[in-house]
């Protein structure tokens, strides 16, 4: 059994995570920031760190298969056992006393456009609304909050709030209470700021800037200890290959532009409370998920909206969903020397609302055991080499509605 490491990763300086567009100075002049990065980036960083710490001969890695000691972080076609779990969004803030995770804003959390009033949305009980809409599948219900009304009883104009949910905000959210104020929702600019930097290419013969090679990179500067909190990332990973000696500096190469971060291997944090579930629940994605049918989870039948979870032991019916704009997940296959196919992924923060397919009560403990901080992909039939679960994709948290 591999040991489970709980890491807190803090950047040494700015970090660089590029969006899906190619960038080369002299071609496109600006590399755009995509923040926060997906768990796939961290998975790669940990694998690279292990190889950097343990591999004595890098040329060995160009041949297949890799030395057996690296089986757990092996090639794409091998079934790896290195696995990210309990990952959350990966963002976290470290104060003087404890580490608290920061969560993506769930899309069923809405804010009055002009005031700091927050509402949790849930599927409307009105199944025969006079208003029709072109949902991709018939039978889905509109999300609403009956108390999000103005003084005259008209619906308020709502928007998805910006920022990140704190531990206290998540606690309220999972208990179906709306978060309030900065204690529950941390503003984006306190978590990170975009820092554009202009670069040039230098002619090494003349030591002057080359014409036509001025470019801009957008870096992320994470909030630091000068404020109340140090912003970083947390992750839990099962490996005994990663250096954990407290006396050694533990570096990771994270993102692009050879930027580095330091990891602390003795981090700890408290997970959100587990709710009690009756006949309905919602799953909120903490990391992006990739489904064959785009936005629709693999285990849901598009005709009946019903589907089995946990190999058919749990039967659910999809009632509604709040799904954000898809994000692209691809990457670079170093061994093959080419880009991996880009998959469209449901973004973190998306929420799926389920109810019991046969009106019976769920076994709350059993359900929670199967979905709480687990990957939604565990309920799909995945091919052997997809590694979606191991890479920390599709992690969910369960709440009541």
């Amino acid at each position, binding site marked *: 059994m591999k040991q489970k490491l709980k890491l807190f990763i803090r950047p040494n300086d700015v970090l660089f995570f590029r969006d*899906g567009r190619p960038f080369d100075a002299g071609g496109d002049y600006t590399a755009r920031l995509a923040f926060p990065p997906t768990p796939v980036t961290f998975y790669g960083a940990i694998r690279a760190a292990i190889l950097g710490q343990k591999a004595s001969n890098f040329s060995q890695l160009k041949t297949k298969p890799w030395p057996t000691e690296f089986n757990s972080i092996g090639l794409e076609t091998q079934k790896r056992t290195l696995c990210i779990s309990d990952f959350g969004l990966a963002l976290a803030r470290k104060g003087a006393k404890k580490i608290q995770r920061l969560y993506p804003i769930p899309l069923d959390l809405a804010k009055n456009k002009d005031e700091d009033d927050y509402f949790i949305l849930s599927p409307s009980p009105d199944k025969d609304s006079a208003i029709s809409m072109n949902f991709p599948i018939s039978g889905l219900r509109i999300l609403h909050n009956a108390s999000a009304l103005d003084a005259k009883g008209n619906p308020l104009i709502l928007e998805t709030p910006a920022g990140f949910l704190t531990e206290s905000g998540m606690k309220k959210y999972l208990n179906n209470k709306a978060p309030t104020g900065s204690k529950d929702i941390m503003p984006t600019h306190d978590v990170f700021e975009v820092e554009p930097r202009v670069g040039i290419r230098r002619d090494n013969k003349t030591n002057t800037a080359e014409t036509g090679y001025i470019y801009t990179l957008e870096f992320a500067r994470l909030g630091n200890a000068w404020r109340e909190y140090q912003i970083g990332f947390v992750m839990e990973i099962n490996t005994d290959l990663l250096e954990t000696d407290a006396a050694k500096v533990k570096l990771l190469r994270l993102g692009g532009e050879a930027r580095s971060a330091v990891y602390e291997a003795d981090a700890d944090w408290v997970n959100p409370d587990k709710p009690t579930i009756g006949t309905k629940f919602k799953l909120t994605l903490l990391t992006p998920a990739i489904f064959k049918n785009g936005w629709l989870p693999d285990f849901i039948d598009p005709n009946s909206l019903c589907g089995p979870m946990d190999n058919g032991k749990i039967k659910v019916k999809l009632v509604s969903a709040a799904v954000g704009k898809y994000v692209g997940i691809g990457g670079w296959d170093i061994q093959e020397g080419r880009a991996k196919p880009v998959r469209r992924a449901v973004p973190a923060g998306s929420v799926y609302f389920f109810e019991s397919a046969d009106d019976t009560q769920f076994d709350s403990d059993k359900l929670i055991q199967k979905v709480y901080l687990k990957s939604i992909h565990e309920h799909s039939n995945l091919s052997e080499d997809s590694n979606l679960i191991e890479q920390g994709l599709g992690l969910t948290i369960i709440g009541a509605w």
Partner: protein
Amino acid sequence: MKKSNDTFFLFSIGPVQEFLAAARRTRDLFAGSYLLSHLAGQAAQVFLKGKAKLIFPNIKKGEEIKKLDTASIPNRIFGSVSNGNAEALAEQAATQVRGGFTKLAQTIANEKLFGVTTEKDPIWKTFWLEQSAKFLQIYYVTCPAAAFEDNYARLYRELDYALGQRKLLRDFEELGWLKANGQPELGQPGLKCSLVPNLSVVYPQSYESPKRYWDEHLLKPKNRHEFRKNERLSAIAITKRKCLPHLAVRENFPSTSTLAAGHYYRNLLEMWKQTAADSDLRKTIGEFASKVNTLTGIISAPQNSANYPALQKKAPDDFKTFLGIDGDWLHSESYSEERLKNEYGLENVPHEAGLAKSALDSLIQTANRHDPGCRPPGKYYAILYFDGDKMGEKLTKIVEDKKFDAARTLHTNASAALREFSTETVPRIVEGVADDVTPRLGKVIYSGGDDVLAFCALEDLFEILRELRTEFEKHLANIGADVQFHGSVGVAIAHHQMNLQQVLDAARNSEHFAKETLERDALGIALLKRSGEHSTTGCKWYINDKKYLEHEYGALQVLKEFAGMIDSGIVATGFIYNLHAEKTGLEGILQEEDVLQEIKRLLLRHSDPNKKEEVENYFTRSLAPFFNELHRPNLKNGISMSVLTQFIDLLEVAQFVGQGGRQ
């Protein structure tokens, strides 16, 4: 009360921002905007043929399709149909839009340029079909009026709310791909598009790698006017770039270099008109145009480029050859050997480049002789987003407590006013093509409803902004509703070689700054210097309540006057430099009056000794009240920007504009 038989619908097409922002050239931006407007026009036609009445936008049955085909149709359509099936009609419109877009993409995919057809190459076909069929996001909601007992305001509000809730589920399909062995696979492999994130570059089966196809087939020098160096595109980006001829649009669009050099073209046009046919100026202009056209012919660079509409219209025919020279050729660095080799893939730079460069030097010297105040061609331009403030809320408010027919009439009036503003007034203000106005250095990209997206030269920026804001309010003042309409604008001032996507983002962020931080009815301006120094500032349109737009101390008047004094040398740039240097110390002074005295001292110290009285007068009547007004709460709580910083940043923008972007 008689119940209405009308069923109302609200229909929207997207993604708007993502589609527009995927632009490397001004032409991409225009084409994207035009294409969206065209698709919205197609949807509108379906509704009209189905006997629907459109309220927003204000299009009546019988209006020619051609008239709808301007970049002025908003992506949201609101209307009603009597005794009809609104849902079926909306679905028909959605099918028409999706089908139209896919068909357009397929037509472009089969262009000779690509050397491959969708019929013969399944991989090529799959890339194009999958990307085009799964790109658009169309959402609609419908509701019978009777469901809300003919309460029009309630109905409008509920539909607006429902559309927002529908958009909470942004359903999408995964893209598919065919492997070389014909095996279908999920996700698309290969290089990624230079413009649209997360889409793969298209390539045919006969080439193993997309890079090889693009490098060996498409990125040849002869195609340089189609694709830039290192550019590799997806089906969506290519469709956007090449759609205009397929939509019967012949209009070309000036490059950012031409936009930035606008005042130089205008100045030379004025000089041209004032000089004799055999003057040395006319000869030099003609010689320059001829030499550049010879060079561009040899190196396969674009010729007969577009310029500002007003200049194109008002210039005499013999000046038009010069107007067709792209602004890039007005900068001496464009003729450097390295640049020509890089941009046009030349192995040897022809000697015609040297001749054209000499002609440019001669042109600048001759123009300076004729008018010593004639600035060299500018390198900075502005892009602006104007948007009505809280339009949804106000459009609901004006129909509240009104009877069904009266409410509908009010909305129709508002829609007609918006259409007149966007299709007639905005082009007049921005482009100034009419015979009786001075040619304006502006070009509209999109103007529909309460949204305007336009380019302009720095010299005309403040005046265009002021008129847009004034006219918007005026147009909506006469619709018979007791609600005041106003708008905010976001501007980005950028170097002509800066990445257009970044400039568009900056302008959008400035608009956000104006709307959120300055709490609307305001302008936000981002200054993006080539050196990498980027700043965003802004203020309310007015000071001293509402007497702002024409008033001597309205914000734009204050800034415009300051820009003028910098331009004419009455105030030296050392004023802002020294004010910056003293900022920290001044912020320690608690008394506002003392800070003002120091500002005044610095201003007068850096003024032309012969114009001190004029400058002092400007300070007293404009600058001091402007500074004081900034002390009134004008920034949302929690924004860490001092009044002095806001004041200095605004004057710095004005100074930059006054200098025409020269530092």
